């Protein structure tokens, strides 16, 4: 991709244990174009959330950035100073988190928490900022925003809190929005609304999105390109339709197969829910060779010994498998 907004190259994140240091994330590379929605998918513990935190510069001990590059709009930010990162956050890159209840200050009215953005980044006074906050709430489709700005987080429903988070994140029209599982904690009926809202607003503002989720279906719907992570590595990256139509990695295939689909029962009769056997390995116990090999139906001897290299695929894709295709 020429002139991407965000370029992550060979990212390595270290986790300091009691006596040794582990690599929680390794060799992670991807690019996000301006205004593009990019999805990062994987099960819990695969390292997708800490990758997001690394991009934001929010890693705290025992986690730390141990290698690789992060380039935002041509500028290297992985070794930026704390002050420089602070200038970027909120203004050029913003983040929304998974649990809107705990992610908002319980003792501060939501309007004020939105207004903070305007006071911080646009030098506004508080009363003007509160007006803008009300407007922001209207944009995220919260009913009666003029009353809601004075409400506290515990007075709002989960969906509304997430809308508040979106309002905060998009307040200063950042170039990149990092969304870490924004709908996981919400009711299913609300999930779709929130995703649609995000897609619409980001499209309108030209904001690129790094969408992180364990839900492949959700991500494929919203994003143009998708990367699948497993045990700290990206195992496959392809455009969204391609990854669904022609998944190249056995893990991706497993993920797709495990999605229950409407109409299956009438078409093929009662089916067991497909699952991927085994569980995600702990950081301290990553298997040798290809990390997926213990759970892979197609594993052979070479998989147990040699970690697979990244094989490039058309349209800036890649796959890490000895038996891809």
């Amino acid at each position, binding site marked *: 991709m020429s002139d991407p907004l965000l370029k992550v190259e060979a990212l390595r994140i270290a986790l300091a244990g009691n006596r040794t240091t582990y690599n929680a994330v390794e060799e992670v590379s991807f690019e996000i174009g301006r205004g593009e929605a990019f999805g990062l998918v994987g099960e819990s513990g695969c390292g997708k959330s800490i990758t997001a935190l690394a991009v934001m510069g929010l890693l705290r001990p025992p986690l730390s950035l141990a290698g690789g590059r992060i380039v935002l709009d041509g500028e290297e930010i992985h070794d930026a100073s704390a002050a420089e990162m602070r200038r970027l956050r909120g203004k050029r890159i913003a983040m929304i*988190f998974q649990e809107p209840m705990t992610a908002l200050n*319980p003792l501060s009215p939501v309007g004020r928490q939105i207004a903070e953005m305007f006071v911080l980044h646009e030098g506004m006074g508080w009363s003007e900022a509160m007006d803008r906050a009300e407007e922001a709430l209207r944009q995220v489709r919260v009913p009666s925003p003029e009353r809601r700005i004075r409400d506290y987080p515990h007075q709002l429903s989960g969906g509304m809190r997430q809308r508040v988070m979106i309002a905060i994140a998009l307040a200063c029209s950042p170039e990149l929005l990092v969304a870490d599982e924004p709908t996981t904690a919400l009711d299913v009926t609300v999930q779709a609304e929130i995703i649609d809202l995000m897609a619409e607003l980001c499209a309108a503002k030209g904001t690129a999105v790094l969408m992180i989720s364990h839900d492949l279906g959700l991500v494929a719907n919203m994003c143009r390109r998708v990367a699948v992570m497993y045990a700290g590595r990206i195992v496959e990256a392809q455009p969204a339709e391609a990854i669904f139509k022609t998944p190249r990695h056995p893990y991706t295939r497993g993920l797709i197969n495990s999605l229950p689909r409407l109409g299956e029962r009438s078409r093929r009769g009662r089916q067991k829910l497909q699952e991927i056997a085994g569980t995600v390995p702990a950081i301290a116990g990553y298997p040798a060779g290809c990390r997926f090999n213990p759970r892979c139906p197609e594993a052979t001897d070479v998989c147990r010994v040699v970690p697979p290299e990244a094989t490039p695929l058309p349209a800036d894709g890649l796959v890490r498998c000895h038996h891809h295709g």
Partner: protein
Amino acid sequence: MLVVLVRRLANIVPTLAAVIAVIFLLFSVLPGSFISAMNEDGRTSIDPAVMERMRKEMGLDDPLLERFAKYVAHTATGDLGTSFRTKEPVTKLVGTRLWPSLKLVFAAMAFAIAIGVPLGFIAALRPGSVVDTISMVGAISGLSLSQFWLGLMLMYLFALKLQWLPSFGYGDGGLRYLTLPALALGVGPMALLARTTRAAVLEVLNADFVRTARSKGMSERRVVEWHVLRNALVLVVTTIGLQFGSLMGAAVVVEKLFSWPGVGSLLVDSVFQRDIPTVQGCILLIVMFFLVINTLVDMAYVAIDPRIRYR
């Protein structure tokens, strides 16, 4: 707000009533001993008939329930009985002692908050640093000190050796006389507050919403000012309320040590003199004070934390 305050204060009454009952019952064992104690110390030998008359006069021979009912009725109207020793109304005796005790307790608490809370904050914002270690070692030492022993040492150093401050007494009620007792009394709560504040701030610093605040691009100072402060204070306020209780217990000893004319020293003296009505009056007053403080702390809590308001 005022309505809520009044309502909360009214809630004290049942507890207070129960306390009165307990104290009264506890001491109903004693009254007779006052008279026999007078006989026992050999200073005055009392004619048994006189003893009998004294008992009747003080109503000590009436049935328990009757005595209790009378006591409650009197207390409700502010009459705490008559001192066995001085024959003055207890209310008057205790009344003159009220202000010195309040001064001492509040001075000690003010000192504890003024030093303890900021210290805890600083320690939490620089965890593992020299400041942190020293503060926390200091804090746990402060907790382990016997407050009257500290008072004794302070008295020795500052009053007797250096002669900077008076060694005991109320004097003109000025700051010079208040300093040593307040310091001795305040060190314990100060230590506890430092630890509590530190723990609270650390806990808040790790909270999700602080991470959100950082993700907004705020300087760390702003994060603390706008988001950490209030949330940490909520936890600290509760501790302050509880601390008043142990403070009053310790105040009894510190008052006696420094001959501070407060309710605490009156309590101790009355116990030795078997002056039951005064003892009861002192305890009652102390408990009432504590309950009122707790109510006020509760109110402060509600003022800070909106989650409780809407329950």
